[in-house]
């Protein structure tokens, strides 16, 4: 066989090769492996902040299709923007908290956390009354018949939605950032799972999916937000978002709603008439690890 001398030969064959590739790709997509096609599309998803409105819409749809395949149930994935003139703040009355952990499990249910292994966005610490707020001598693993116990008090910790968040600073790929309404969010499609933020967070508020989350279909909350409670993949970090899927629609976070003693307060810090502003004005506030200058928007107070 002699090499063809015609200079066009190379071009024709190259064109043919490209055509073949396209045909194969088209055949692959059309052959009903839409799940795999979606998976491939997700791989190339851009960073959330670089998406055009159309791309965002198509991303949301891709995820709804993927969730439908994976969980065999309809899950709505929305992306609600922050409202202007809103800065969310949270206050927790340490003197009222009884340590019942209803907030912990309401949060798990609302935010589609993994049930096996368990991921909790809220950690309730039991402390000794005669030692005061002392983390080293606290325990998160208390398990008595009845709470509250004599001589103990309870100190729930979750994301403090810092104004100066160390987790955001340390992320190598910008997969986490502070939204205009003060909520620190994560793009689960962009996180590389390096866990710098888990290390940087002074409040133990960031949680890693060490394996594929165990989320039974019947436990799923189908009303989800892209930067919030949509089901997460394995290998990415997640955290409290003040229930972004609720708060941005004017509702209370699940932990605020469930608290049986009314220890949890939530509202707009920019609204002088809000309950949160009333608390800041009329109670003495405690900032957890104030020396780190993280400037939390999560305030502890003591009503009694």
């Amino acid at each position, binding site marked *: 066989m002699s090499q063809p001398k015609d200079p066009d030969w190379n071009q024709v064959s190259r064109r043919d090769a490209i055509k073949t590739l396209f045909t194969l790709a088209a055949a692959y997509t059309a052959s009903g492996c839409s799940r795999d096609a979606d998976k491939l599309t997700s*791989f190339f998803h851009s*960073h959330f902040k*670089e998406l055009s409105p159309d791309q965002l819409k198509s991303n949301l749809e891709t995820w709804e299709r993927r969730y439908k395949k994976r969980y065999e149930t309809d899950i709505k994935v929305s992306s609600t923007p922050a409202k202007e003139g809103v800065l969310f703040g949270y206050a927790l009355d340490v003197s009222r908290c009884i340590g019942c952990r209803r907030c912990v499990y309401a949060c798990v249910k609302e935010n589609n956390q993994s049930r096996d*292994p368990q991921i909790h966005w809220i*950690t309730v*610490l039991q402390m000794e009354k005669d030692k005061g707020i*002392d*983390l*080293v*001598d*606290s*325990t*998160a*693993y208390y398990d008595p018949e009845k709470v509250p116990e004599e001589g103990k008090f309870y100190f729930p*910790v979750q994301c403090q939605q810092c104004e100066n968040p*160390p987790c955001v*600073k*340390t*992320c*190598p*790929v*910008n*997969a986490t950032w502070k939204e205009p309404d003060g909520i620190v969010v994560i793009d689960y499609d*962009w*996180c*590389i*799972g*390096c*866990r*710098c933020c*888990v*290390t*940087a*967070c*002074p*409040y*133990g508020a*960031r*949680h*890693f*999916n*060490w*394996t*594929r989350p165990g989320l039974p279909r019947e436990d799923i909350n189908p009303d989800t937000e892209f930067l919030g409670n949509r089901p997460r993949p*394995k*290998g*990415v*970090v997640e955290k409290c978002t003040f229930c972004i899927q609720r708060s941005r629609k004017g509702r209370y976070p699940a932990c605020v709603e469930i608290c049986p003693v009314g220890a949890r307060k939530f509202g707009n810090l920019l609204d002088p008439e809000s309950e949160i502003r009333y608390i800041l004005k009329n109670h003495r506030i405690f900032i957890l690890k104030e020396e*780190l200058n993280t400037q939390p928007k999560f305030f502890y107070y003591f009503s009694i």
Partner: protein
Amino acid sequence: MKKILNLLFKGSASYYIWVGFLLVCIIQGLLAYGAQFNHGLIVTHMRDSVSWGFYIGNFTFLVGVAASAVMLVIPAYIYNWKPIKEVVIFGELLAVAAITMCLFFVLVDMGRPDRLWHMIPVVGRLNFPSSLLDWDAFVLNAYLLVNATVVGHLLWKAYKGEAYNKKIVVPLVIFSIPLAVGIHTVTAFLYNGMASRPYWNSAILAPRFLASALCSGPAVLLILFQVLRKITAFEIKDDAIHKVAELMAYAMGFNLFLFGAEIFKEYYSNTQHLVHYEYLFFGLHGQPSPIAWYAWTSLAFSIVAFFLFLVPATRKNLYTMNIGAVLIYFSVYIEKGIALIIPGYTPDTLGQIYSYTPSMTELRVAAGIFGTGFLIFTLLVRIGIALLFGSPEKSGDLRTAGGTPLVEAEGSV
């Protein structure tokens, strides 16, 4: 080229056994990593409380090895210190192998290795300059590139039988010196910058990193030189070995001094931040710490090795010096691999204790990565020896690959 391939595939029985052993390490490591890739990092013992562990500890240790290997270049090139000059090439080969292992250790620690491309400039999206991990990725890759270029150029020229180009090599070697300091400083800053972890949030962390690295990297080289001198045509004078050992004695002395400064600050001020040192050396809440044994071993090794290297009689006795080198290697390996990372996380930021020790998967993957690094290093050294000093093995024909020895070529410098 054929001769080079011959060099890699043909060797003595001990060469086959060594390479076979490394291949076994690599294959079992790949199997372990395969399981981790499928199930996620849950097969490690890392959890939210201790979110970095053995992988990142090894990474940190190897950054030190890579950095210090090239720091031998400083006296060689700046003071034109002849005895060390001929060993610099091996420092650079070691740096290439060590950085490769570093990058693998970071890769296996990632939750989403498939998204590595998010860290590529322009294609991905970096959080530069605020993320220290971005800086680290940048300096590590730059360092790898510079050293691979120098090594590649030296070997290529030796293969062609020509003198190397001073205009390429000297500036790159000089540039690699600040980069070597840079990779270890930036890696130290990665921990140092975490205000949430008081154990690392100490200004002398980066100096401590440099001091301990100046011990561990040369320790590897000291042993290597003697092995090579025994089994290959490579020659090195005792004088050079003793010079390196003397440098190590100063570095170890400084390292111990910095450690003492840290201990004084923590124990004299006796704040709550002391809990991390208490966990490292004793234990907390009446529970003995699973890593205390390592911590004391590391400290004891450092002190013994320091005196072995300080006293001229034991430093110049190859037998006691080798004991010292092995002690230093393990002392720094424990210090970086275990005593740096784990106490930083224990107790965690909310005061809770999770007692971490590496899982079998972590040990196996680490063995696989070390196997890969040692294999790269073995092959590079074999080629290097053949090209620069003649035969890879003592019994073989000298200069089969037809190279001009570097030592001669350097006569022109």
